[in-house]
């Protein structure tokens, strides 16, 4: 092949154009908006490691070129390589899984504690003891990862596996038993429901493109939690009459939202989810919390879905209230089931004043990846401080 000098010119010029263009485009756009170019912020602060890092992050975060091209690339990776990016894993039959949950299932836990607050047990025990000192019963509800219940939809190799309980999860459940901490074993519950699925025609317990459970999962969980609450004898079934109304909600799925690509989202039809909205039997008004209820439920987004999201009053809180025949008080902290929700409770001590039961829900993956770990949270010291 003869050497043509124009090929060298083309190569050099093209390369320079590609590396210069994004900076120029960004600068022009920022000047046109009447702003100081972000690139010059380097000179506005002392060159400390933190400032330099923040500067680099800021350049990337504000880059118009990245904002324009990233979703297209994500779509191409999704379309041609079945790659859902850093946050999600593509399973079978169109199911998506949350990557941290998959990592929780397959990764080796660190040897020894990862940090002072990485072990859930001391935090759970401390919380139980503090509540017990106030005469309040604690019921812990770890919600299984989607991967634990539907491993066969994650990978073909797990076909016929049924429901899996990760070693770390099993260890925690065993420790809860050993320490006399009351808990609901939703793994058992969901295993039974899954086995019966073919016979009863019950829908799947989790959504295909969401990290959370389906209305069927909510129903199964609410029923089993209520059974255990009533079996405990502290509380009897209340006299509030609730009924259910069928409502269809459209959900794109939080895993799809997380991909942050309009093209991917546009290529997938939202899931139509048939929910049961809980309403007051007499007035027909949707279920509402009662802060002065004797039962307080704490938890993460597994409590929020269908309850505070569309269609509303159709999540675990409402269905548990229906099963128990009494309204509940609740604190919901998205992604904060391990520590943040208890900190929320500590900031609202009055909520505990007349409680007999606290139900604490958290997602299984939080056992390892809980936001802020598993800190011991001190509640107010005496009942008098609640008032």
């Amino acid at each position: 092949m003869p050497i043509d000098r124009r090929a060298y010119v083309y190569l050099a010029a093209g390369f320079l154009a590609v590396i210069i263009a994004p900076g120029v485009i960004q600068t022009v756009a920022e000047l046109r908006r009447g702003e100081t170019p972000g690139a010059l912020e380097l000179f506005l602060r002392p060159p400390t490691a933190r400032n330099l890092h923040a500067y680099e992050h800021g350049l990337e975060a504000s880059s118009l070129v990245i904002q324009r091209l990233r979703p297209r690339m994500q779509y191409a990776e999704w379309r041609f390589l079945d790659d859902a990016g850093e946050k999600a894993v593509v399973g079978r039959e169109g199911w998506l899984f949350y990557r941290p949950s998959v990592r929780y299932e397959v990764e080796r836990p660190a040897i020894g504690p990862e940090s002072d607050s990485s072990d859930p047990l001391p935090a759970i025990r401390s919380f139980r003891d503090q509540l017990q000192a106030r005469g309040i019963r604690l019921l812990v509800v770890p919600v299984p990862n989607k991967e634990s219940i539907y491993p066969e939809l994650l990978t073909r190799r797990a076909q016929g596996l049924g429901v899996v309980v990760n070693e770390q999860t099993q260890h925690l459940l065993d420790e809860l038993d050993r320490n006399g901490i009351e808990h609901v074993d939703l793994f058992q519950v969901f295993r039974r429901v899954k086995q019966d699925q073919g016979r009863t025609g019950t829908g799947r317990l989790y959504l295909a493109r969401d990290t959370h459970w389906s209305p069927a999962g909510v129903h199964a969980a609410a029923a089993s939690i209520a059974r255990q609450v009533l079996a405990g004898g502290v509380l009897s079934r209340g006299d509030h009459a609730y009924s259910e109304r069928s409502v269809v909600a459209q959900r794109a799925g939080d895993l799809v939202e997380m991909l942050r690509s309009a093209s991917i989202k546009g290529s997938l039809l939202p899931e139509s989810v048939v929910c049961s909205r809980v309403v007051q039997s007499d007035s027909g008004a949707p279920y509402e919390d009662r802060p002065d209820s004797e039962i307080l439920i704490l938890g993460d987004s597994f409590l929020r879905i269908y309850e505070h999201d569309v269609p509303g009053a159709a999540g675990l809180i409402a269905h548990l209230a229906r099963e128990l025949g009494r309204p509940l008080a609740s604190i919901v902290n998205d992604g904060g089931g391990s520590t943040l929700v208890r900190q929320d409770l500590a900031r609202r001590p009055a909520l505990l004043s007349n409680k007999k039961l606290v139900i604490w829900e958290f997602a299984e993956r939080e056992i390892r990846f809980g936001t802020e770990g598993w800190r011991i949270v001190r509640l107010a010291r005496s009942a008098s401080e609640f008032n």
Partner: protein
Amino acid sequence: MTFRVSRTILGGSLLAVVLISAACSPSASMGGGTPSSDPELARHGTIEVTAKLVEIPEGAIFERELYNYATVLKYQVIEVHRGSVRGQTIYVGHYNPFKPRADAADQLVPNIGGDLKTFREDQVERMSLDGSMLDEFSGAILNKYFEEDPDPIYWAVWTDLVSG
């Protein structure tokens, strides 16, 4: 064939110099502009302060794909323009702090804003605040100062950058 590459690249460098010069010209205002002239500050909240962001604890601000959250940051009050605050050191909750303030409002928290783009330590900010975050916001709160038991935690409604 010893064509000098310098000439090819010189054009690019001159362009860069022109752009940077243009960027440095007085017509280009700094991010914060003159915050006191921002009428939105007076329209929101019950308190208005100028304060210095003392620190951003490790992990207090991060991009969160799934959920919204508010984080608590510590400020040293420089001047109180409206209302009153308790002490010189105050704690302020900011909603979805990884977003520029102008883009942070959503259905859950509709009325916040400001011209601040990124939170950085030692920044001086002018904020309009509400008196209690717990009264204003019921979502997820990340409070790295939980052990210090700050009370009250103010809620930032409008946040403009003054300097830094």
